[in-house]
């Protein structure tokens, strides 16, 4: 218990959609009276029931697609805005770098900006005095330090800004993708500096990034946020696998999708696949019989005429064939069920293929409106050649499908 430095307990944050005061006088009165349900504005829940603890010296990565609530969480922890529900307990000094060069003013010189920015970030004057030379050296801007930063190139500007941040003395550092500054050389320098801070000074870091490489290098633990909720909390490698999806969650004959993180572009969540399975437990297709595939699903919003599409792609993820199955899923919220489909692979030649399962609903124009999208089980086809007169199939030149 002693070494927990940050505790987030059941935190939620609502935003009001639409303009806040652009509504009518009637709305303003209703808001005062607490009749929130009659308002024109809707609420949007950016974070809901988020709880976690961070120990001293831990580097926690926070990943999630756009709009998952990462930045909101950081804003709450760094006290920029307050939560709607729940509490956050902090034991130590927090420095947040949600942006490089906060408070930099173009009219002031480099040196003046170092002092101003440092003071804004909570450094005392003495502290800055003692670190000034080191900050200037790190920024590689020694020559221009007495020039107003409005005459700086944008690269010099961010270098100087990051240098100040890198010299902060806080117990908890909060960083929102600030490492993506400067040229490649400087980026590496920044990352090295961050790692040095973590390793040597045992500081706690909360780090948000979309850059998998830097998350992997820096963080020992990761949280995945999805639609304002924590869907995963644990080991970085596992989190990267789940979030960045460079490896699917499949085992050989089944895949569990209950905790699968859906891609951010997926707009709808009416139906979710919970499991996919080869019911015959075969992993390899060796004959011309259709491949049997069983899906478990769960309905969250009333739907009808929902189908599933199995998209088959080669090892480079070029989709070359799809099998479409209509009218498999319907029902009201809460309905669960299973569908068994048979994929005809007669024309697909030998090879190992990746698949994607898309749950869709046809719209009135005959276009597919995608409801769910998960990476599927691999299909491995390895048929013995039965007819000696036939050619040996050459997939690399002729493609994967024989007509």
């Amino acid at each position, binding site marked *: *218990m*002693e070494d*927990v430095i940050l*505790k987030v307990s059941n935190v939620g944050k609502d*935003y*009001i959609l639409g303009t*806040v*005061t652009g509504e009518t006088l009637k709305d303003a009165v209703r808001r005062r009276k607490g009749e929130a349900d009659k308002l024109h504005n809707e609420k949007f829940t950016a974070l809901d029931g988020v709880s976690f603890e961070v120990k001293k010296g831990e580097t926690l990565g926070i990943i999630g697609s756009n709009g998952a609530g990462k930045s909101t969480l950081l*804003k*709450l*922890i*760094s*006290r*920029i*805005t*307050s*939560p*709607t*529900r*729940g*509490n*956050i*307990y*902090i*034991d*130590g000094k*927090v420095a*947040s770098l*949600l*942006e490089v060069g*906060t*408070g930099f*003013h173009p*009219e*002031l010189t480099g040196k*003046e900006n170092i*002092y*101003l920015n440092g*003071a*804004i*970030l*909570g450094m*005392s*004057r003495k502290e800055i005095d003692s670190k000034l030379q080191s900050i200037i050296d790190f920024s590689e801007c020694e020559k221009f330090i007495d020039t*107003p930063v409005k005459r700086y190139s944008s690269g010099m500007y961010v270098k100087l800004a990051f240098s100040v941040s890198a010299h902060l003395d806080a117990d908890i550092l909060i960083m929102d993708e600030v490492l993506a500054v400067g040229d490649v050389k400087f980026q590496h320098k920044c990352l090295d500096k961050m790692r040095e801070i973590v390793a040597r000074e045992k500081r706690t870091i909360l780090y948000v990034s979309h850059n998998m490489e830097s998350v992997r290098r820096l963080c020992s633990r990761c949280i995945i946020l999805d639609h304002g909720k924590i869907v995963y909390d644990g080991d970085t490698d596992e989190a990267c696998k789940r979030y960045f999806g460079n490896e699917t969650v499949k085992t050989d004959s089944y895949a569990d999708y209950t905790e699968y993180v859906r891609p951010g572009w997926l707009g709808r969540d009416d139906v979710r696949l919970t499991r996919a399975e080869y019911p015959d437990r075969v992993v390899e297709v060796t004959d011309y019989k259709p491949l049997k595939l069983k899906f478990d699903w769960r309905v969250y919003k009333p739907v009808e005429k929902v189908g599933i599409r199995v998209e088959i792609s080669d090892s480079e993820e070029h989709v070359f064939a799809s099998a479409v199955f209509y009218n498999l899923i319907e029902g009201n919220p809460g309905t669960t069920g299973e569908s068994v489909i048979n994929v005809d692979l007669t024309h697909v030649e030998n090879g190992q293929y990746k698949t994607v399962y898309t749950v869709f609903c046809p719209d009135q124009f005959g276009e597919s409106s995608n409801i769910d999208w998960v990476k599927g089980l691999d299909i491995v086809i390895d048929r013995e050649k039965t007819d000696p007169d036939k050619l040996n199939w050459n997939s690399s030149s002729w493609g994967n499908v024989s007509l």
Partner: protein
Amino acid sequence: MEKTWRTTIGSKPKLWNVDFKEIWQYKSLVWMLFKRNYSLEYKQTILGPFWMIFNVVFNTGVFTLVFGYVGKMASDGVPYFLFCLSGTVVWNLFSSCFYGNTRVLMENSYLFGKVYFPRLIVPLSNLLFCIVRGLLQFMVCAAAWVYFFIRGEIVFTGLKLLGIIPIFLLSAIMGTAIGLILSALTVKYRDFNHLTSVAMSALMYISPMLYPTSQLPSILKNVVYLNPMSSFIEDFRYCLTGTGGIYIPGTIYGVVFTIVVTILGLIMYGRAEKSFIDIV
């Protein structure tokens, strides 16, 4: 088992959340922001702060010409230039403290949205900046006083002179506090933005900055004293030149008003700072 945390961020805003200890820790930021304000205003100017002196002298000169020379306005036996100048110095202090802070939340939202520090730091540094500017303008007033004293047109008021210090501070604090209240209101209702300049010029004309209250019929006099700055302006003038007088009920009203708006301002600002970033 239960751990004591240094900071707790809760969902319910406290009514009073001014943390003086924390503000003290950030004192260097007050100074840095002060320096920023200063250099922003006078970077790339040759005369620098002399511009504010020039402004005051020029404005007072015009007022003296129009009201004192042409309009033959009474001034309780003090040269009109000094009469007007002393009023202007106090009023300018009040109004610059006020204007400096009416938009403090909106103008600094880029800062407040990215990093945490006690939000009162910015109005404090504005206050400091305005006081320094006020002192510079007072120097002009003092120079004019010396000039008229040498010419024998006014008398030395002795210890009363010290009275200008509390009046100076009270005016600055009152301006800042009203500014804070408005900045909290403006976040949500920008109507107040449009109201301020009208209200301020109205207040200026219903204060004894340009004329002595002794000239007014008693009904109008009471209206003028409704403006909490009125008695401060007269008190300031009395302490400096010994003319006019201290209107005790008006002064008490001014002091009480200042205390009330200061408390109200701190509360409203403290509440607004918690969530305004979601609204701006």
